[in-house]
């Protein structure tokens, strides 16, 4: 099986702070990590490869330092890595991101499956997986918890709001993967050493034969017009005292706000 996994490098949310002047993330000194959900996508791909043979290719679009995330993925067991990096890709919304990633996947050849995380923890849109699947003309199952091969199709367990669904999907197909699916395996020492030295393919705008009007800022229909802090709470109250006092004060305050 030829499998691709799309991984995004994101700032570690545990360590990030917000600059309240500009409402941008303070990224300086904040370690970057593989988007946590993409670890689950990677593990699912590795398990399928271990069962059925084949290769796992990890793909990331981002600045040159996103190479680090790809090396980490190699250390966990991926076979090949491709970085899509070019100034022209900058400022992409989910449409342009999906389009660019899909060109790279096409260029890499015919895959049996393409995996994504459920969503990225910074952009939070969950739109890139279905977007790429559309450009590759593949069916997509979102929120996949398990994927197995049955003959010429996949059998997929999908998480929904009120339970699960089982789907049969023709090959090739795309999946976005939930946290509950698995836990990413440890890095092996051998892989870790190899990953340090591995050659990572880097493709830019010219390598993909992209249309300049469809990538980066110019290919993006959405524009961020304003970024601001979430509205601050007014009317905050702190209650202390004996347990009985606190309980009755809470009940009183909830009644004052007409929510009890």
């Amino acid at each position: 099986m030829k499998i691709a996994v799309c991984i995004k490098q994101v700032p570690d949310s545990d360590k990030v702070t917000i600059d309240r002047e500009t409402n941008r993330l303070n990224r300086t000194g904040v370690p970057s990590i593989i988007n946590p959900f993409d670890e689950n996508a990677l593990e699912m791909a590795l398990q399928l490869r271990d069962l059925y043979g084949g290769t796992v290719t990890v793909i990331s679009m981002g600045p040159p330092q996103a190479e680090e995330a790809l090396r980490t993925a190699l250390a966990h067991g991926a076979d090949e890595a491709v970085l899509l990096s070019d100034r022209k890709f900058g400022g992409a919304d989910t449409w342009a991101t999906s389009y660019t990633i899909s060109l790279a996947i096409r260029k890499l050849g015919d895959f049996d499956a393409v995996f994504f995380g459920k969503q990225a923890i910074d952009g939070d849109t969950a739109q890139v997986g279905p977007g790429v699947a559309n450009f590759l003309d593949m069916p997509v199952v979102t929120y996949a918890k398990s994927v197995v091969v049955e003959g010429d199709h996949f059998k997929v367990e999908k998480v929904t709001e009120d339970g699960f669904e089982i789907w049969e999907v023709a090959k090739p197909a795309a999946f976005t993967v939930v946290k509950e699916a698995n836990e990413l395996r440890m890095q092996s020492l051998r892989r870790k050493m190899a990953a340090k030295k591995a050659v990572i393919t880097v493709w830019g705008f010219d390598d993909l034969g992209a249309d300049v009007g469809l990538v980066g800022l110019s290919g993006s229909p959405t524009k961020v017009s304003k970024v601001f802090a979430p509205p601050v709470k007014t009317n905050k109250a702190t209650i202390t005292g004996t347990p009985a006092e606190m309980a009755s004060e809470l009940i009183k305050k909830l009644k004052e706000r007409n929510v009890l």
Partner: protein
Amino acid sequence: MSKEIWVFAEQRDGVLAGVVKELLSKGRELSEKSGFELCAVVLSEDGGVFCDELYKFGAKKVYTLDNAKFSYYQNDYYSRSIADLIKKYVPEIVLYGATSIGRSLAPTIAAMLHVGLTADCTQLDFDVENGNLLQTRPAFGGNIMATIVSPNHRPQMATVRSNVFKKEPVDNPSGERIVCETNLDGIPERMRRVEVIKESDANTIDLNAAQYIVSGGRGLGAPENFKLVYDLAAELGAAVGASRATVDAGWISHHHQVGQTGKTVCPVVYIACGISGAIQHLAGMQSSDVIVAINKDPSAPIFDVADIGLIGDLHEVVPELIRQLAAAKG
């Protein structure tokens, strides 16, 4: 022909998703500002059964796409059919619920049509100067808000979070059904749903729609102390939530987990008992109307987002709360 605002009328097993009524209610406000006509689009075996309810919340037109293959959401059939309909009528705005269906369907359609899609909005407004839909959404786990526009592409599309807008029926509902042709012959059957397994745990099903939620964290100290959370929840008619620390410890099933890797909830009152308020937990409950925190550590970050903070030992406060609530009922 007047310009239109469309609401995707998501139905599951013949029942409209709650968010559809919220979107129509909000859509009326946008319709008044913009002068665009409010319409709904429903894909099902027979859309006739949904029309009255959609008129009741303000739809002036209901486009029905009727086909046995629309009995449940299948991404290929749904996305192709809606994209074709959008190409035919070119609405100005299309809104979807940010449900698991909406968040898979809408990005597929956006990719097909090369239009903008804003994810998981919590505010919508219309700029009469330039015709832009002002789409506001939380990003980075709710730590920043962004307003997004798609100035040069039509339609402007957004998925919108449930439980943010009120459901408000109109006084004199009236509307018109437009039966649309559907032709799925050219679409190969690449995917099919073979089984549906509903969760039996009533408390978890409630989380998304719950008016009240009581959540427990590691501060409970031991798995058996979740009883306190359940008892308080019973007193309030609330659903039960949990932090990931308690789920990982095996104190409660992951269906209860609230947060970035769990459920996103938006109840009227959210009571966090012994939860520190890690950024990943806040991501799932920050937009609740009133947040109550019970924690013995006054510096716990949960107090930053709490409307009402109780500084104390939950093992003392919660039983007292249960007692007083029960006593008040008589």
